[in-house]
């Protein structure tokens, strides 16, 4: 593979797109020859970020979600961006079991899962402008 590749995906914040979004990024990541576990990790982290955008960024509206994935060397970077309400307190949002959602299926573990399954998670958010979650993971070198 050439040393760099980029893909971009734009979706509406509909819950039926959660599975589509994680599958697309997972499929793109296979270009780095990851292990099955590494693909699962990436898919799980993307699912969390996209679900957060659907549930929290656009609580009463349908908005755009932009996903950019970049492969460079053995590293994948995934950016999940929304243009919604933003996060008021990022520190608090990162805490395990913290959730502002009334929906009981939101366990408050989204960011904890992203941080565990990826090497690095950066959250950038501005109230009323939106949130960008950038995640990075190095893929192990495998012998064939």
């Amino acid at each position, binding site marked *: 593979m050439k040393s760099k590749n980029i893909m971009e995906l734009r979706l509406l914040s509909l819950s039926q797109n959660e599975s589509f979004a994680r599958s697309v990024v997972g499929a793109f990541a296979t270009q780095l020859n990851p292990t*099955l*576990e590494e693909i699962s990790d990436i*898919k*799980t982290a993307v*699912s969390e970020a996209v679900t957060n955008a659907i549930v929290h960024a656009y609580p009463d509206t349908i908005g755009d979600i932009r996903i950019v994935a970049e492969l460079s060397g053995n590293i994948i970077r995934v950016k999940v961006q929304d243009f919604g309400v933003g996060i008021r307190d990022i520190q608090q949002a990162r805490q*395990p079991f913290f959730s502002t959602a009334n929906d009981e299926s*939101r366990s408050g573990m989204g960011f*904890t899962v992203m941080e565990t*399954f990826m090497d690095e998670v950066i959250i950038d958010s501005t109230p009323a402008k939106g949130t960008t979650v950038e995640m990075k993971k190095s893929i192990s070198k495998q012998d064939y």
Partner: protein
Amino acid sequence: MQIHVKHQSDIITAYLFGELDHHSAEEVKTKLDDAIRKYSDANLVLDLKNLSFMDSSGLGVLLGRYKKIKMYGKNMYIKNANKQVEKVFDVSGIYKIIKKIK
């Protein structure tokens, strides 16, 4: 997402098929609650052998059902989680609350 429920004496086994995320959470919640209500004198075993994917939305669904079944004085168990699902369970520490069985 599909759920098959089998009731045998004092145990309900719910077999989950497919992917449990925020999108499928509501359906899973409703189907499990129906089974819990119908067989309120039984313990619930969730067989996750055919659950191919779960994210943190699944944790919320499972913990909610656990609370519900505890109100009936019964218990809930998890079995056969695949590697990806197991990793989400491990991160959350859910096994300190809901027991894993073989």
